[in-house]
């Protein structure tokens, strides 16, 4: 099977080369057969990569310990569930997995558009094949996952060796979320290749209009959604498994996943400027280019070891390859831009400083500043070593100080931006739109203060969260009221109808609401408390309103690990609340590492987070580390809303029944043109 896998990848490399070179020839000759063969070669490349990936999975499941990768990342006792995840546990497998996910996107695009956009698709195929060639080069010639174990025998010749068992999977990865977190994150990273390919292709082909944006909008949203889910799951994994009480440590690997998410978010907003007003064409193209480059940069940072990270899981010598690839991408992008920049001539005009357009500019400014600040902070230790000779660390306190004000400014714009009309917003309209949300925000802030959340940034954050939630609620309420008045439907049904008529706009609002929930959760971090104690049987510790009593401990022997478990009774106001069971798992063949299974009692108000840290090296008694983390649950709830909003935005609009009676003048600065042409659909320029 390893030979089959290796051969599949080698053949895939050849096919990708053909798709690339044949594609370029097809662009010049416009020969229909050449165009078709290049496209089909692209499809075959993807299928062959699937074969290669299947081969590695087969080797993992069949415990083939003659393969170095299987020995390094699996063992006989590993459950089937985690054998599947071993595919991306190491450098070679994760690069193959990257190629595989990229192929899913590419094959979908090549098949979906096989009879459409004939002028553009050959260029798209060439760009996609170019990206595949790079990853297939790594899969075949640099980090092959099919290397066999070999040793020199007595006669001095190399011979194949088969081990009786493998080293097993990294204990930190043996957690259910690690089976879905990397695929989501990788799907995000690889998904941004599609808008990149279309943007570059449109520029190279001088493809007319905003067609590439319409074509890639959904692909971009899918990639963004996967990236968001991946980041959320990664944060939850860090929270539930690493046992340090937090969910985001500004580690270089975490930062690497955030960078393309920030520029991708900026792009999803600024693209509306191009669609609606024909503005910012150059900016949008470069945002897409940068997002893709940041995906590659993120992969480079994770794997090259250029920055130290607690969970840069695979460091190796492939850094120069990524640097070279980024150099080539930059060269191609700059060349395409300077050659065809007149094609990107925008219709940049601004009717008023107070308008949706200006809010989008500030939105993009904040996302870009956030991105560059995170990037420069992540790379600063390297820069400081280059320029000053000594490495200066940049840890979480720095990022918190820099990013909290930027995050709050973005939150503020989340509330303000969607309520500003395109072109111009009147003072009257602003009063009408912002009056109640401001009052509600002030009340919300006062309640938070009364509840004890008294820290400047948290106070501002909670005020803004209520303000933004109120603006979103009013948007739904106003629209639903109009539909309800016309159709006689209930307000709930009308709100549903409203959302389904303009899924992109209202899906966007749902995403914004999800982000509000995330920010509520983040605001709680300022009030975290923790206690760490060496405990004896029957000992107790107090944390906030909770009393923790260590009742007992036992061990649990499983096939692949042995768990030491503490039994902790939790009391609140001297009444028994529940039992918690924090664990420490020790895996066979990996004594230096252990898995921490945190016991969490989670409510909307706070999380009681209990870690069994192990036995104190001095006394051999158990050490219990308990944290009280307010509002954390809101972060995970917010993540769910973000996904729901994105899914809503991806759905097609439901056609509104044409109502010829004039719409009542209830809300917003409606364009006269819009009311005349489309009286029943929308009252005001949408978020989309």
């Amino acid at each position: 099977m390893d030979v089959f896998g290796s051969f599949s990848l080698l053949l895939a490399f050849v096919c990708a080369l053909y798709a690339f070179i044949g594609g370029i020839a097809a662009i010049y000759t416009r020969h229909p057969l050449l165009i078709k063969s290049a496209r089909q070669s692209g499809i075959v490349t993807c299928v062959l990569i699937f074969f290669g990936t299947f081969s590695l999975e087969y080797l993992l499941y069949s415990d083939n310990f003659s393969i170095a990768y299987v020995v390094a990342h699996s063992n006989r006792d590993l459950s089937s569930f985690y054998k599947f995840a071993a595919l991306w546990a190491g450098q070679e497998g994760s690069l193959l997995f990257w190629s595989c996910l990229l192929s899913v996107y590419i094959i979908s695009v090549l098949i979906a558009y096989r009879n459409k956009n004939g002028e553009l698709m050959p260029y798209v195929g060439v760009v996609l094949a170019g990206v595949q060639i790079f990853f297939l080069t790594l899969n075949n010639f640099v980090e092959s996952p099919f290397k066999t174990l070999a040793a020199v025998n007595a006669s001095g010749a190399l011979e194949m060796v088969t081990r009786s068992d493998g080293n097993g999977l990294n204990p930190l990865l043996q957690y259910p979320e690690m089976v879905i977190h990397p695929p989501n994150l990788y799907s995000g990273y690889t998904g941004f290749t599609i808008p990149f390919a279309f943007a570059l292709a449109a520029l190279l082909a001088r493809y007319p209009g905003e067609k590439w944006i319409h074509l890639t909008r959904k692909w971009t949203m899918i990639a963004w959604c996967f990236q968001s889910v991946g980041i959320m799951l990664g944060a939850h994994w860090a929270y539930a498994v690493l046992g340090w009480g937090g969910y985001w440590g500004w580690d270089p690997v975490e930062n690497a996943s955030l960078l393309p998410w920030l520029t991708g978010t900026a792009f999803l907003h600024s693209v509306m400027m191009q669609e609606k007003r024909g503005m910012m064409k150059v900016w949008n193209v470069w945002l897409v280019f940068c997002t893709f480059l940041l995906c590659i940069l993120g992969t480079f940072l994770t794997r090259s070891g250029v920055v130290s990270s607690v969970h840069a899981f695979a460091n190796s010598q492939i850094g120069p390859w990524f640097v070279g690839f980024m150099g080539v991408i930059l060269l191609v992008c700059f060349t395409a831009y300077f050659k065809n920049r007149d094609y990107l001539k925008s219709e940049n005009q601004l009717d008023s400083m107070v308008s949706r357009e200006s809010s989008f500019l500030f939105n993009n400014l904040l996302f870009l500043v956030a991105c560059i600040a995170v990037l420069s902070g992540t790379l600063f230790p390297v820069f400081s070593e280059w320029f000053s000779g000594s490495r200066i660390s940049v840890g979480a306190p720095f990022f918190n100080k820099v990013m909290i004000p930027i995050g709050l400014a973005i939150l503020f714009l989340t509330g303000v931006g969607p309520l500003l009309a395109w072109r111009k917003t009147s003072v009257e309209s602003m009063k009408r739109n912002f009056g109640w949300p401001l009052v509600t925000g002030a009340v919300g802030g006062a309640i938070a203060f009364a509840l004890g959340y008294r820290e400047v940034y948290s106070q501002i954050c909670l005020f803004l969260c209520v303000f933004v939630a109120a603006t979103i609620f009013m948007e739904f309420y106003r629209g639903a009221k109009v539909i309800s008045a016309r159709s006689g439907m209930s307000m709930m049904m009308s709100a549903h109808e409203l959302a389904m008529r303009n899924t992109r706009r209202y899906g966007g609002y749902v995403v914004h609401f999800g982000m509000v929930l995330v920010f509520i959760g983040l605001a709680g971090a300022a009030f975290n408390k923790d206690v760490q104690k060496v405990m004896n049987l029957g000992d107790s510790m107090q944390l906030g309103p909770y009393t923790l009593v260590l009742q007992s401990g036992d061990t649990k022997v499983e096939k692949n690990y042995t768990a030491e478990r503490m039994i902790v009774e939790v009391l609140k106001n001297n009444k028994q609340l529940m039992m918690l069971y924090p664990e420490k798992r020790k895996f066979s063949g990996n004594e230096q590492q252990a898995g921490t299974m945190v016991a969490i009692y989670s409510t909307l108000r706070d999380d009681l987070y209990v870690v069994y840290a192990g036995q104190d090296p001095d006394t051999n008694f158990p050490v219990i580390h308990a944290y009280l983390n307010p509002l954390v649950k809101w972060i995970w709830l917010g993540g769910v809303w973000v996904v729901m909003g994105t899914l809503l935005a991806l759905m097609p609009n439901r056609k509104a029944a044409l109502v010829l009676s004039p719409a009542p003048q209830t809300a917003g600065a409606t364009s006269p043109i819009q009311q005349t042409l489309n009286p029943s659909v929308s009252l005001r320029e949408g978020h989309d």
Partner: protein
Amino acid sequence: MTKARRPALFVLLFSLAVSPLVAVRLAAQSDHARQFGMKIKCMCKGCDMTAGGCSHPGGAFSGPCETAKGMLKEVDQHIAKGETDDQILQAFVAEYGSVVYVEPPKHGFGLVAWMMPIFYIILGLGLVVFFLKKWRKRAVDAPATAHAQAAVNPSDAFERARAQADRETEE
């Protein structure tokens, strides 16, 4: 899959430990030392965490390592000598180098890290204001030009108006 609960190890451990030992805080260091420990990195080179918050995720013992404990003891010794936080920090920098900082110092090359975000914001704001003004000016100038063009070719103006209406009403 073999599954067994073996309370033996810990029950034995605990039954041996029924002596009237009072549970103690893990860190023998003062709160001040632990708070200060949040400002310096644990120099064990295995965790990349602060000395005060060292918990070695994924390690066999997820609590402060010997290095972190040693560093906090050292902090307490400095505190006992009556040194200020700044003096203690400088003592650690002298011992371990600038890598001991959790956040860059606000002097020397470290200041660059703090200035960069401010620089980005100022530069970005300048660019946004520049483009807003430029586009606003273009819009002010545009109606006169558009009016003149419409007089020359009314059908072009109509097409543009229609395209604009399409854009504005597009869902």
